[in-house]
């Protein structure tokens, strides 16, 4: 094959690839610049938990605490309850959040419905130690 033809064909391919490589990012950048207010809610969620001073103080020197949700957490299925659990664990590391509650007197309640928190506390003879947000509470045993 003629070298000139080869050059023309490969230049055409280069132009096509360049367009594909530049148009996608350029379009995405324009879209993101136009809607710059949007930030992933997960990042806000982590910031609220990780930067809560009372919660940090309460968990200082703790290795493991319990973690409770009012929705089923199935790590093979996914969903909002699982996302909240993972984000909470990420926010509070190096403290471990254990779904197996038996051995833990401190529990982080992370509920989808805030009205479900008090019944849970009464049922398990727990009290609020730290209110992190409407639906997130650090709870401990009563009588202290």
């Amino acid at each position, binding site marked *: *094959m*003629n*070298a000139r033809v*080869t*050059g023309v*064909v*490969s*230049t055409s*391919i*280069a132009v*096509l*690839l*360049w367009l*594909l*490589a*530049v148009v*996608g*990012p*350029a379009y*995405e*950048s324009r879209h*993101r*610049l136009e809607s*710059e207010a*949007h*930030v*992933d809610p*997960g*990042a806000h969620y*982590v910031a609220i938990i990780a930067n809560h001073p009372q919660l940090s103080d309460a968990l200082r020197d703790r*290795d*493991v605490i319990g973690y409770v949700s009012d929705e089923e957490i199935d*790590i*093979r*299925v996914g969903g909002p309850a699982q*996302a909240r659990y*993972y*984000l909470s*664990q*990420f926010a509070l*590391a*190096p403290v*471990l*959040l*254990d779904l*197996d509650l038996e051995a833990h007197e401190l529990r982080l309640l992370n509920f989808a419905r805030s009205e479900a928190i008090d019944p849970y506390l009464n049922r398990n003879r727990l009290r609020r130690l730290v209110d992190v947000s409407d639906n997130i509470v650090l709870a401990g045993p009563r009588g202290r």
Partner: protein
Amino acid sequence: MLFSILALLVSTGTGWCLLHLCAGVQNLPWLLRAVLSCGIGLVANSILMFCCLMLGIADPVTVMILDACLFAGAIALWLRAQPAIEAKLATATTTHRNGSDRAIALATSVAVAASAFASLLRYRAEPLGFWDGFAIWNLKAKFFYFAGGAHWERAFSDIITWSHNDYPFLLPAGVARLWNYAGGASTAAPAVFSLVFFLLSIALAYGALRQLAGERAAGLCALALLASPAFAGQAVWQVADIPLAFYLLGAVCLLLLAKQEGAATTTLTRLAGFFAGAGALTKNEGLLFALAIVVVLAAGARKKNESSESSDWLAFAQGAAGPLFVLAIMKLGYAGESDLAADFGVHSLARLLEVGRHTTIMASFGQTLLVLAGWPLLVVLAGVALWSRFAATTGTVAGLPIAAAILAIQLLGYYGVYLVTERDLAWHLGTSNLRLFVQLWPSFLVLFFAQTAAQASAGVDASDGA
């Protein structure tokens, strides 16, 4: 942020000195050496960080002092070895760029800048990256970082098996190291780390292919990588798949360069082993890749019965031994059981005969390829393949069958895991298949463009000769 970049520069400097202890690499172009240096340095510093954690001395000041000592030691070794290496040096090859080559290099640079800018905006909107970023990799990094690494073993706790407490440490140790330099666990450091591996992958594909098949093929390959929506889209996901893709690509490119260089085979093959070992330190799939290379090289040696071929896999194994030794310490001493292995039983093998699973996996592979590359790029690649086949069929790249066999074994391994997995197949495919393809995509594109360039040039030569 600036201190994180300083940490990356220290790694690159350390890697540069360590790389140049190997006779034979001096003939490689500076871009390729710089990229390989960064990859080597990041492995060295992550291993050092992990050793600090094991010894209980991973506070920021100690980590930085030990990094500086490693850098100084590497410089001293490099300076000491320099005269002996220079004596062995062949004349360095210089390549001359014509106008069209310069235009392709410029176009590639513009595309890289556009992609990096889009990635930074993506990071601004999604600072935590992808789900696995905060659920696995950066979570481990937090255990490695906080309280001077005092709680690092919690990363392997059975309480968080969902965080894959058997996964290797290169990425989280690297991120924790950047946090040590930065003085805080910001979201910027893992995003920068992630973006650096993305850019290194592009630069490695470009630099290696430029050496193997010329500037034009290198530019086309880099552009094709940047034009792959799922690959470019994961640049700031903060997960291990692009870092793994980088190390696997390094192993493949170094094997191809070793075959091309001939005389420097042992050095480059040993380096390929190191990169494959680094892949195993990055993610479990890297272990399969290292094994696949040993199998292919050993099979090649057995078939040809040549001493040079048999020394290939030995040199490869020597290079991989260091990273794999550290990995063995982590796996045997600290890591939990792999959930995939734990679920596996003899009864799982019965699934091999379920036709429906085969069709589901193959359909998913096809769909994933479409998502990874996008149909416009696939059409262009098909056009390139057809054109190069039309041009000639005689040209080939030395070592390409070996590299293709390695990628095929790796893909077959992924297929086999999906076939016998205890998990819901659709869920397993849906949550992992795209990232597995991302791991192999740069290596595949390098082989693709190396081969098409070789065929096209063979066609030109034949035509000119006639």
